[in-house]
């Protein structure tokens, strides 16, 4: 059962005897997931993105160079 399901179950079954600890864990996991989702939507906390020049070099390395290799190979 994943955290989202656990949160739901914790909400529904949280008062049942003998399962309180498990559901407390489930609820805290779901809270942690929700906290992380909120945090990661903030620009300062996201990973640094590729820049335009990175995309240009990517195209050079993975499109233009292979084309050159294939052309050179076919000349022989």
């Amino acid at each position: 059962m994943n955290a989202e399901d656990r949160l739901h179950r914790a909400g529904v079954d949280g008062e049942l005897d003998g399962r309180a600890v498990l559901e407390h864990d489930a609820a805290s996991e779901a809270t942690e997931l929700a906290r992380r989702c909120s945090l990661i939507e903030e620009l300062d906390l996201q990973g640094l993105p590729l820049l335009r020049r990175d995309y240009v070099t990517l195209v050079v390395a993975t499109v233009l160079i292979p084309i050159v290799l294939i052309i050179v190979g076919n000349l022989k």
Partner: protein
Amino acid sequence: MSAHETSAQHAALQNGWPQTRQERHWSGTNIFGTAIATAIATWCFIIGGFVSFYLAAAPGTLAVLAGSLIGMLFIVLALLPVCGKYGIDSAVSTRPQFGVRGSLLSVVLIYGSTLGWNIILFIFMGRATNSILKGFGVHPPGWVTGAAGVAGILLALLALRRGPESLKDFGPPIAVLTLVLGVVVMYLLVHKLGVQKLLHAHAVAPAASRRVNWASGVEVLVASNLSWWAYTGGIVRNGPSARKAMWPLITGLGLGVGVGSLAGFYAGLVIPTSGGDPTQFLIQTGGNVIGVILLVFVIIADLGTVVVGVYSSAIGLRQVAGVSKLSWNATTLLAVLPAFVIVGIFPDQVFDRFGTFLAFLGVCFGPVCGIQIADYFLLRRQTLDAHGLYDRTRAGAYRYWAGFNPVGFVSFAAGVVVYLYLLDPVTYSSRTPFEFLGASIPSVFVAGLVYYVGTRLVLVPARRGGYEHLEPAGRALRSQRRIGPDPQPGAASTATVPDTL
């Protein structure tokens, strides 16, 4: 860092939850080390060996390098921006395209590809054992290959019994061992057979068309590198910067396989019956003593690689609701269960169909890449709803219909059909325009195009999948009016419901 923070970060790592930039500590060197450790294993020998069917040494070398780089284009575009930005893994990154439940498809694909690679390595271990026995003058019966492969599975399970934590550093030493093995194999081939023989060796089983041979050689590497889709998200999400991860990925995963495959490629050319498989020629070229020692290295390297592979497969399986309740040992057993039958009973038949497995990788991961690239760059403007990635309620952004996005599945099917039309993965017969474009590249583009059109025609009008920003302005405003607060009689319009409508 407090105990609570450590525990929270551990949970985030294990469950594929977002990691903030500040929590990610892998440098470019760490990413490169993990990438090259993932890519370089003894499977490189048979990837290269497969190219030797189509091309001679000089053009084949160029085709191997070109295919390696082309494959990485799609992997980088599909995963690096999104996984780097949100700190999520490959499987979670497909939820916007397939739905929160439909992304189970990607878990199945990850399971299939890691299982396939593991099976290849288990059979490798069996064949190496067989050859070692021959080196000692024993002529083993046919079942020895399967039995030794099954013994390899049991050894891998035994190594994983203590849990996953102690296995994280297996990769780099195995990559170094395999690279050394490759260098020694190349030295043996050159020393024994000479450079001239290598340069003048013909392709083993070329097609009639020169263009088809070229396309096939490139396609083998493109498809092989597309299989790194399964691993890339898990690597990238540990680094704080997509910029610092790009070149380590291209060189480690892409060129790692390319360069690593060359030894198998050359071996396949000069020893045509081997198909690049070192277990079939090390005794012959190195002599009994050196050959047996090298074969033992092959077994050790394979064992290390499959332990990491089974670990990855088990972690992937634990994303599935029912499996997450199983014990760790039961999960690892489940991860290799089909391998017992396949390796134990059909080792040679499966090994001989390696090309079909390679095609399977292109068939499956090419369309996924195309769909992700079209969605993230053309439709979502490089922004996801982070809560929506995990929200299975009706309000979830990526809930679609019961958690599944039919447009994603239709697009995937379209990509698969295109691939199968261009290249039959069983007979390896091809149709035009395979000789110009290969099969994976058109498959990527068609899947992405179908997804783009399907989203515009179906998902946007149906208001599913968080594409509200693509709605025509008037319609979007009308819907805002519908869901906005009821204005007081006689009051001015609210800010979200302009009075121009």
